[in-house]
């Protein structure tokens, strides 16, 4: 496929119409506006409507159930605090759910357009796709745990959905290649990083330490996504020669990426975060410890089964699934 940066017939610029451009340049002088004023006049209308707006674009729903109304969160965080938390959780849930679809779109493009030196591998895209889905389920679990309704489109979710419309358009446009779509996903990952960071603060601020620890793990993996996406973009630019000689740091990153794969570095970070979270937690009793260990083992094995079957490794999946059953029996 022809590259978009290959010179072609772009007709948008004035210079593309040498015969008519001179006539167009007369227009500025010929114009006698029918009323005086400045660009700010248009903003006046917007401001007046903002002042007169009868209602915001949406509000939070009433507590979804008796359970939510009676929940510790609602009691402890009477008033706005609880709804702010649920609003923001709803925002991340929707963003991660949409993000899962965006990475599905990227995978489809990967298969058509292929990658570039230092660009994403299919395994990397698949992993981020899984992460996004896991994060969606994680936040869904948070909301349910707080007794709220995860199917609600909260106002903040709506704002982010509107803001992300262009990202969806780029990734779903078959004429825009993988490299161009990665530029779009970079916008999503930048926002995602900031929003997870805010969510961690919010969870800590409302006393949900355990949820905050889990959110922090998600934030770590989102940081890794952003690092990868930045590297892919830098590598794409570097591969054109437009950046001049490749920066040593980037060359190093790309070499590492080829040798070990960013999977490993991400896992290390996750393990570190988990260890930190565990250290923070209060010392459990013997029984609790045993139960917790069983739970963790089960979770790990199930997740291995899931990822193995997603990768098409049936034997490994069967093995992992059998050992998951064993753990359940235990």
């Amino acid at each position, binding site marked *: 496929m022809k590259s978009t940066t290959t010179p072609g017939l772009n*007709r948008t610029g004035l210079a593309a119409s040498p015969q008519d*451009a001179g006539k167009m340049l007369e227009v500025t002088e010929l114009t006698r506006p029918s009323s005086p004023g*400045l660009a700010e006049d248009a903003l006046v209308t917007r401001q007046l409507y903002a002042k007169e707006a009868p209602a915001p674009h949406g509000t939070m729903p009433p507590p979804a159930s008796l359970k939510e109304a009676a929940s510790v969160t609602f009691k402890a965080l009477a008033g706005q605090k609880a709804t702010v938390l649920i609003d923001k959780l709803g925002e991340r849930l929707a963003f991660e759910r949409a993000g899962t679809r965006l990475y599905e779109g990227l995978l489809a493009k990967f298969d058509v357009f292929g990658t570039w030196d230092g660009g994403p591998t299919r395994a990397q895209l698949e992993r981020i796709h899984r992460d996004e889905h896991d994060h969606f389920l994680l936040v869904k679990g948070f909301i349910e745990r707080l007794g709220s309704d995860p199917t609600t489109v909260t106002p903040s979710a709506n704002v982010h959905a509107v803001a992300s419309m262009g990202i969806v358009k780029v990734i779903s446009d078959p004429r825009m290649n993988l490299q161009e779509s990665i530029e779009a996903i970079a916008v999503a990952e930048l926002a995602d990083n900031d929003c997870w960071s805010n969510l961690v603060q919010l969870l800590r601020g409302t006393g949900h330490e355990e949820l905050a620890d889990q959110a922090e793990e998600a934030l770590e993996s989102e940081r890794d996504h952003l690092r990868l996406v930045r590297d892919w973009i830098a590598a794409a630019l570097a591969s054109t020669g437009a950046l001049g000689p490749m920066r040593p740091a980037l060359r190093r990153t790309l070499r590492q990426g080829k040798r070990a794969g960013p999977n490993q570095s991400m896992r290390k970070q996750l393990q570190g975060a988990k260890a930190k979270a565990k250290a923070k937690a209060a010392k459990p009793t013997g029984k609790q410890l045993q139960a917790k260990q069983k739970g963790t083992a089960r979770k790990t094995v199930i997740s291995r089964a899931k990822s193995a079957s997603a990768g098409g490794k049936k034997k490994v999946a069967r093995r992992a699934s059998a050992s998951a059953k064993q753990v359940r029996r235990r």
Partner: protein
Amino acid sequence: MSVDLWRDKGTQLDRQRFTWKELTPAPYSKLNADAFTRVRVILMNGIEADALRLKHAMAKVHRDLQPLLAQLRRVEQHQQTLINWLHPPDQNPLETTLGFEQVAIEVTASVAQREPDQYLAQVYRFGLLEDFDHLYRFGALYDRMEGKDPNTITQSYTDILPGRPTSIEHRHPTDDLRLSYDRFAAHPLTKLHALAITAAEFQTHDYYMTIGPMFSDPGARQLYAEIASIEEQHVTQYESLSDAEETWLEKWVLHEAMEVWCYQGCVAYETDPRIKAIWERFLDYELGQLALARKTFEDVEKRDVQTLLPERLPEVIDYREHREFVRATLNREVDLRAHGTQFVDKAELPASSPTHAYREHLNSEGSPSETVAAGWRWTPGTELTALGATPKGNGQVKKGLKQ
């Protein structure tokens, strides 16, 4: 290809078929396609929409024709789909709007220059100056809301200048009606012109009514409401040019001939070979549809179609810039106003004209088209390039808030 309106059979109706893949072709490139390709896509989408509109209205009063009309409409709906789906997804509704106004300017300018009837030519020039102003207002919106240059869409073919100010285009409905041509005396081209321009304006109205509420900026929502209202005025104006005494079947035959004429123009001027092939295919389809209309007309009305249509197609729409014609018309006729079915200088519009009260009331809480373009001049690369490094103060904003 020389078209014979009396004898050509075109593609048989039962062979005018599509698959979903065909109906959703790869779009043209917003950046690379010639602006006149977009103009043709917008116009022909409107022509097919009007074909459906006419046949639905006919079906309401012709039970016997319903089966045939249903079959024709299905094909026309699919033709419209294929054409409309040529618009690219990265072209936003405001950008497509700029294309709609370019259609209204360049196509109407071609029609106005070739129209044999002097009164109708005057009507087209009158409407042209109003659509010309719409391009300027939407251009200002595009610059001031999105920070983009409208000339990237119109590609220097069309001036972006004020015309007859939109704020004074609002007229009492009876001042939008015009005298019609005489169905027995009018030149065939006169009939085709009236049908084509009415169809184009109808689609413009429907498009603005659909996309207007999709804007979040209240100024944009107001502007679309205001200009959609004028597009309805334009439909009223152009629709009244056709002789209301024409029979339904007569109107149908003329409409099919008009579609043939439009596709022939597209074939003659299209520079994109892939899209030209679509126009050629649809020209054959239209000839097939015209053959059916001719036969039905002759069977039902027992009249010879030669009394309605010329054997050969008249001159097609001239798809090129008409800058000098438009500038000359602007200089000469911008101050004309409609008084009933006639045009007079603004100084001669009587104080008793119902348009005064109608317009004053509509504009009494502010004029969206004046607000959006207050002090605006098209400048290459947007007006921000002419403002220098320091933005102007926000005195107007504060003033507005105090109101």
